[in-house]
């Protein structure tokens, strides 16, 4: 049985198509996922992300414990700031990608993907043992609601006195939204401006209704995981299980920049990652745009002159580009400029290589 989020009844009353995702019963879409996608690009979308994991590290050595446990330099993070980072194993393989919020000198919140949350909490507990820091998986206490899209700030401003204009990208501060305590973070996974609101489970339903009412004049729509996936894909953002896995290092995924070798002390995976950091990866994460209308999808081979030269990790029809797009790992040795195709159920469909991301918002 999949676990429901605190908003399950709301999703059902909205007529959502529900799906199992990482052991959770989640809204896939409420109506047309294309309309939800477009609402986020043009106005705003409302997402239930309560499946995400929230793991807290507190104590005098919480920062040091995270420096050891993760590839990032979290002790250098200022209070109120957030950082995208990863947790790897001893071989350097990615166990999850994370956002870490520094809530205080001695308090951090690690947000993990639903599929990995238990594993990440266990690893953090093991890795923090030698430190004066407490690790608590508080995922059950929190609901997470995201408002994403260009109208997000205006919508949220009707429900809070918090200084949203002063809240920069990748920052988070405690505040009140609709009279309820919330951690208000300017983060997201859509390629748009937006906010993520971490609230107590019992506040999820009233906050959802308040945001729905506040967003109505601005064109806000509830949006499901289907549009979340196409939005992040257009924004070129990796998805764990597709572009990231324990078989790949951050360098393999083209994300070596998240590994901070210059931080003090050892960290899990350091020696393995130092050994590969200057070795060009065998395959490169590549953006593809199909010339035709058939969609390259996860697992399809990338070919050149009939030979397999890579594999699609994510693919979808792009609302914004009007063409199918895909992320793929493609052999670094080949000239990807011309003649690439994706084997779509036996037919070689021509694709062009493009710079990532596929979509970048106007700031």
């Amino acid at each position, binding site marked *: 049985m999949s676990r429901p989020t605190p908003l399950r009844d709301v999703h059902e009353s909205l007529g959502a198509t529900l799906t199992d995702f990482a052991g959770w019963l989640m809204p896939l879409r409420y109506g*047309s*996922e294309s309309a939800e996608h477009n609402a986020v690009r043009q106005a705003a979308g409302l997402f239930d992300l309560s499946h995400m994991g929230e793991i807290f590290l507190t104590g005098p050595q919480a920062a040091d414990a995270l420096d050891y446990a993760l590839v990032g330099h979290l002790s250098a993070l200022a209070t109120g700031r957030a950082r995208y980072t990863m947790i790897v194993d001893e071989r350097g393989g990615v166990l999850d990608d994370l956002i870490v919020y520094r809530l205080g000198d001695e308090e951090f919140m690690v947000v993990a993907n639903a599929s990995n949350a238990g594993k990440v909490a266990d690893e953090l507990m093991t890795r923090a043992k030698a430190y004066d820091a407490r690790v608590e998986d508080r995922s059950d206490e929190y609901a997470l609601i995201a408002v994403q899209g260009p109208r997000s700030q205006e919508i949220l401003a009707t429900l809070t006195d918090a200084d949203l204009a002063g809240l920069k990208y990748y920052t988070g501060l405690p505040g009140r939204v609709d009279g309820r305590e919330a951690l208000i973070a300017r983060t997201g996974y859509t390629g748009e401006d937006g906010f993520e609101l971490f609230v107590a489970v019992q506040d999820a339903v009233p906050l959802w209704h308040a945001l729905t009412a506040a967003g109505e004049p601005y064109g806000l729509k509830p949006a499901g995981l289907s549009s979340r996936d196409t939005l992040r894909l257009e924004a070129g953002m990796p998805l764990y299980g597709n572009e990231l896995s324990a078989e790949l290092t951050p360098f393999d995924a083209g994300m070596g920049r998240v590994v901070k070798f210059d931080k003090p002390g050892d960290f899990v995976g350091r020696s393995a990652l130092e050994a590969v950091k200057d070795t060009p990866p065998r395959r490169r994460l590549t953006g593809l745009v199909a010339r035709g209308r058939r*969609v390259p999808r996860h697992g399809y081979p990338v070919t050149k002159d009939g030979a397999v030269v890579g594999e699609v990790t994510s693919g*979808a*029809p792009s609302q914004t580009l009007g063409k199918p797009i895909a992320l793929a790992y493609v052999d670094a040795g080949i000239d990807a400029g011309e003649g690439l195709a994706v084997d779509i159920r036996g037919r070689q469909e021509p694709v062009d290589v493009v710079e990532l991301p596929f979509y970048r918002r106007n700031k």
Partner: protein
Amino acid sequence: MSNIPDDLSYTKEHEWISGLEDGLVATVGITAFAAEALGDVVYVQLPEVGSTVEAGDSIGEVESTKSVSDIYTPVGGEVVEVNQTLVDDPSLANSDPYGEGWMFKVRADGDAADLLSAEEYAALTSGES
């Protein structure tokens, strides 16, 4: 519960077929249940007019945001018409699956195998939804 018109016949592959009883040209499309399960249809590939097909053949495909499905023909015969309007606007498969969203017409050269009545199809889909 999705819409299942009484006057059509259905297949286990979630297609509808009409016009068979006239012994002339049958029209085929996908059901509202199929369209809802797929989500927004973004691309429809249909057989060529004039091609000969056999009952049960995969003769096209329907792509949505999240998935792709084959289109099977419930009857054999000659494809006499395809819905070019649907190719140009695949969202018709979602908005009007039994009307403007029809897919192709076949001059049937035999009986269709294993067709379901509306009642039988309703029973099938209530088990799947």
